[in-house]
């Protein structure tokens, strides 16, 4: 039993935050960040926990009301941490006809 508990603890640590926290963080990202900019701005970056923390502080200083800071930070680190692979950005459609 103890060994199972230990294994679960290690697994949880390896996984990072639990899924409920990540989902809460994802929702907080939509609520807090989307009013000012699209999420690509976030999702294109790969930052350490400390660096994501500083970004949240900067945005809070610029008027963003972040109510679930811990969950948002966990979500950012788990999804866009500096150990995560970079995904190539998308290419826009041809807008020359929609001038």
């Amino acid at each position, binding site marked *: 039993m103890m060994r199972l508990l230990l294994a679960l603890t290690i697994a949880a640590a390896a*996984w990072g935050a639990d899924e409920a926290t990540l989902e809460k963080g994802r929702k907080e990202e939509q609520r807090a960040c989307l009013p000012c900019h*699209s999420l690509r701005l976030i999702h294109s970056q790969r930052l350490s926990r400390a660096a994501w923390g500083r970004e949240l502080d900067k945005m809070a200083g610029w*008027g963003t009301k972040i109510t679930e800071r811990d969950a948002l930070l966990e979500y950012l680190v788990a999804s866009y941490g500096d150990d995560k692979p970079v995904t190539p950005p998308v290419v826009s459609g*041809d807008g020359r006809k929609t001038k």
Partner: protein
Amino acid sequence: MPANRRELFAAVMAVAAARRMKAQDGPVTIPGKRPLIVHNDRPEDLETPLKYFDTWVTPNDAFFVRQHIPRPAAIDPAAHRVQVNGMVSKPSQLSLADLEKLPQHTVPATLECTGNGRAFYSPKVPGIQWGRGAVGNAEWTGPRLGDVLKLAGVDASARHVEIDGADTGIAQTPDFLRSMPIEKAMHPATLLALKMNDESPQIHGFPVRLIVPGWDGTSWVKWITRLTARAEMSGGFFMNPGYRYPKYARPPGSAAVPAELEVIEGMPVKSTLTAPEDGSKAALAPLVIRGFAWAGENAIERVDVSTDGGARWQPAQLSPQKLPFAWRLFTLNWTPQAPGYYTLLSRATDTAGRVQPIVPAWNPSGYLWNGIDRVGVTVEKA
């Protein structure tokens, strides 16, 4: 987490991710623009793919876009005014017609985002992860900023000019305000551009954009509404701590020392390889290595290219116009002698003798990347 729970979680996350992609990160088209690399679409941060860099003038519909804050609402050109005030004897409100009546000048100049190449820094730093394409070369036309300031009777003791545009921050996001020393403001190549490559600048700052040749893109304020002659440099986020560079380099990953940060002005010497593209394949046959090189306020003197990882270098052919502020295209004809993977490098030298470094100084905001450019190409038997 048990396997079945993990699978369920993964499935839930995948559905959520798909919904999110559709809702937020889905396909986007920018009116008037060719397909560009989208780093952000609200506001627009768009990078030019290397394949569009085969001409000396970058077409407007391929030119990169950097917005800090959302574009202003549609501007009525007939109603637009540029206020000139501060340390001037004749404060004024200039219409576009007033600006068009002044002598018009055309300056070819390379515009580069201060953070172009940020993605190459390690450790990674926050900000738009620009690769090679947050840069372009255009011919800018309009009256000299110096003529506008002289007309307003700028005071001899004014030391700086503050520039504001029609865009404003959201929530408490700071307004995009910049200033520059009076010497650069009075420089004959510093313009209030009404045209970009003979067209309306549109998303690039219609109807009036500041042109500060050789200086970082952040200095080139868009949709200008106000010019204020002042005794002091402006404050505000975009002057401090934004767009400052450490006077003394510190180890990669170190925090900035605020007192040691300086406003970025002129840009460094740099070259970019545009063909062949990194990671591409080429037939075992003669091919042309292409690129462009630029050097802030200087002109490009030479570009050397290596096809063997830097063991040997050859001078590249340069396009004829050797101008300050504007880039030069370069080419090198290359006939690989054997199949295999080749590391191609380019290294520019400017008229002041500045040379691109192998390793640019890491800095906490990822500005001014100008390392020797490097691409890999696999040559295969035809």
